[in-house]
């Protein structure tokens, strides 16, 4: 009674004071901006999207019987093609290696230059950027869009919204369409998709990627980075005071406030509080509040602020890519001086040095190099011919009418090349042991001639017959040796030969 009563009282007295656990999204209307970082972003957007959409169309001649697409994951045939490299399913560790390289590369770049991946190359950023560009082209810039959203529904508003979403869906469909091209022959799958002949799997994945592109780049946007993505949560572990990050130089900007053109800047910070840095931010934050989880480090506020600084006649760089170490040094140098241009001169004396070689970056670079070497060695030592032998278990052995003992083995020869070599199989370990197989010719010296199929695993069932006199023990080791036509050994495999106890 007492607990319930206490709880009741608690809730009765302060129902409106309990914190709200859900924050409604405040829609972001990023304004158009021009400048260096915007240009870099446009360039990277064109480059990454260009690679994504066009790479499947690149042809690569591999001869007859093999796909002629440069980059292709051929699921039904269990092969992955990357230009001259062809990977079998059991070599998927190369993909793992690439992912490790990507992760450590990301750590290294982040420790040096901050969240450039988030700001410039992440697919979420790239596609959101593209969708925002479409939005701006159809509905107008920030103020026009805010006004449009607040306005009542008219024919024009409906038309603009339909046009925008249609354009978004078209881009999303192209994204989903390009995805399936990496798993199917691009020209074929495009024709099949449009003629309705493609498989249900293809339509499913086109639909899936269309829906996700549309939802994530059109609707979710910065919420993906803020709430869904794990990377911003732990990327802080890669950053330190020597990493480049987007910063507002408060020692120079404060006290902020409106400035009348032509008047003195003495006692006045450089920030004129125009709000442009907030207006252009794709995640809708105010960089002047300091480091924030939501900042993706794209530098668009740098461009916006530089434009304004140029207009009011102050040096650029009030918001800039800077290290915390340099920021603190400048702030310390400027602190004793009154607000105004003098602070800028004091800070200018602070040396700007990007400390590239730090234990953190050296470790990342070292691991990166190590993984590169391991992968390179693994690739160079990759075998193109493999032999495996599995001994029959039923029966363990067969006694023949002359008293000799026969064991049977299932032999698999894996040939990664597109050639059709004939290998000679011989067996070592038991004197007088003879090889035979139902579907292989026996050549000189008792070796079996095995014609190996190209780019495939060929299976034989071979019999080894040994005279009773050679069998000293119930289990004897034998070795199968595969030789090329030049007599060079290409593969060997150890097994055992079983016989009844003497």
């Amino acid at each position, binding site marked *: 009674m007492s607990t319930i009563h206490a709880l*009741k009282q608690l*809730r*009765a007295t302060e*129902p409106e004071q309990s914190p709200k656990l859900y924050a409604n999204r405040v829609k972001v209307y990023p304004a158009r901006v021009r400048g260096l970082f915007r240009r870099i972003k446009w360039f990277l957007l064109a480059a990454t999207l260009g690679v994504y959409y066009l790479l499947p169309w690149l042809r690569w001649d591999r001869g007859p019987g093999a796909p002629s697409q440069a980059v292709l994951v051929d699921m039904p045939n269990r092969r992955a093609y990357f230009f001259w490299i062809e990977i079998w399913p059991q070599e998927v560790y190369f993909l793992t290696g690439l992912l490790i390289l990507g992760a450590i590369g990301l750590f290294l770049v982040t420790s040096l230059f901050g969240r450039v991946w988030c700001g410039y190359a992440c697919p979420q950023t790239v596609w959101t950027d593209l969708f925002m560009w479409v939005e701006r082209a159809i509905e107008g810039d920030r103020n026009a869009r805010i006004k449009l959203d607040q306005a009542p529904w008219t024919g024009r508003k409906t038309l603009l919204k339909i046009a925008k979403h249609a354009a978004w869906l078209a881009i999303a469909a192209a994204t989903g369409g390009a995805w399936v091209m990496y798993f199917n022959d691009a020209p074929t799958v495009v024709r099949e998709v449009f003629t309705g002949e493609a498989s249900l799997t293809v339509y499913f994945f086109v639909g899936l990627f269309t829906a996700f592109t549309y939802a994530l780049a059109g609707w979710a946007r910065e919420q993906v980075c803020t709430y869904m993505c794990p990377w911003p949560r732990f990327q802080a572990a890669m950053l330190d005071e020597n990493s480049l990050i987007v910063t507002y130089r408060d020692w120079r900007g404060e006290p902020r406030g409106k400035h009348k053109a032509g008047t003195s800047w003495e006692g006045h910070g450089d920030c004129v509080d125009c709000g442009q840095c907030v207006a252009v931010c794709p995640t809708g934050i105010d960089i002047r509040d300091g480091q924030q989880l939501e900042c993706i480090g794209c530098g668009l506020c740098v461009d916006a602020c530089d434009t304004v600084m140029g207009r009011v006649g102050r040096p650029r760089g009030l918001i800039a890519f800077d290290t915390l170490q340099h920021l603190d040094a400048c702030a310390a140098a400027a602190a004793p001086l009154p607000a105004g241009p003098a602070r800028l001169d004091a800070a200018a004396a602070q040396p700007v040095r990007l400390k590239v070689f730090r234990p953190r970056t050296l470790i990342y670079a070292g691991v990166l190099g190590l993984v590169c070497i391991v992968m390179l060695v693994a690739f160079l030592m990759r075998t193109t011919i493999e032999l495996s032998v599995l001994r*029959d*278990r*039923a*029966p363990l052995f*067969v*006694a*023949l*009418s*002359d*008293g000799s003992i*026969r064991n*049977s083995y299932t032999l698999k020869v894996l040939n990664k090349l597109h050639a059709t070599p004939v290998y000679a199989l011989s067996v070592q370990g038991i004197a007088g042991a003879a090889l035979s197989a*139902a*579907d292989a010719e026996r050549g000189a010296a008792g070796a079996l001639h095995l014609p190996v199929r190209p780019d495939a695993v060929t299976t034989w*069932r071979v*019999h080894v017959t040994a005279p009773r006199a050679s069998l000293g023990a119930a289990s004897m080791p034998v070795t199968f040796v595969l030789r090329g036509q030049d007599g060079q050994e290409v593969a060997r495999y150890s097994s055992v030969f079983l016989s009844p106890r003497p």
Partner: protein
Amino acid sequence: MPTKVEKDSVTGTMTTGHEWDGIKELNTPLPKWWVIITWITVAWSAVYCVLYPSWPSLSSYTGGTLGYSQREEVARALQAAQAQHAPMVQRVTAASIEDVRRNPELLGYAMAAGRIAFANNCAGCHGAGGQGARGGFPSLADDDWLWGGKLADIQQTISVGVRTGADEARTSQMPRFGADGVLEPQQINDVAEYVLSLSNRAGDAAAAQRGQTVYADNCVSCHGERGEGNREFGGPRLSDNIWLWGGDKASVVASIANARAGVMPAWTGRLDEATIKMLAVFVHALGGGEQ
């Protein structure tokens, strides 16, 4: 019994009007979406009952207007699978067994299909790997054949079976030398010793010597001069190390006294021609096949 429905001051929710010892129950109905989905599923179940088989009766069930049946679905799937295999099966039927053996494509198909047919029909007696079993189930993996180890011989044996009563069936008849009183126990012992000596197993040399005469009088016609056997009559070879019914002296004596006669069904009629052909190819490749 409901007394007074009122608004709860803490939560702002209506009560159900029930009260027990001062505790009132809040009326929190199921969410609307949940109720709607429930009613949709109820409605769908009614539609389902009309469209698909659903209600059992004493001897049958309601079939549904769509006429759907899982048995028919299986039959269709089987038919589709057969149709898919038909071209290869036709090719195997049309080709001679030697051609199946020589053509890599047909051989690959025959080995795969033969393996399955063997597991379904033969492995029960002959073992999963054709190793045979004690008590008259011959090993098919060794090089000793009662009726011949060539492809055509094996195909014929599978087709007509052993001692099935069919005209062409593989049939041989070993007399019951002991049970029918053809030979005296002493003679049986002697001839058993002689038979053992054919595969170089030392025993009673004098008895073997005596047995040779008995052998010459009674056994030679089927088992051959030196026990080499005769595949024409299905006379087993006695001079090797492979004994279908056991090679120790007691077993040999028992075989002579009471005779042995294993059987195998004829597979013509049970299996189609192509399957028998593929089985023969598979058995031939188990290891003992003769050229």
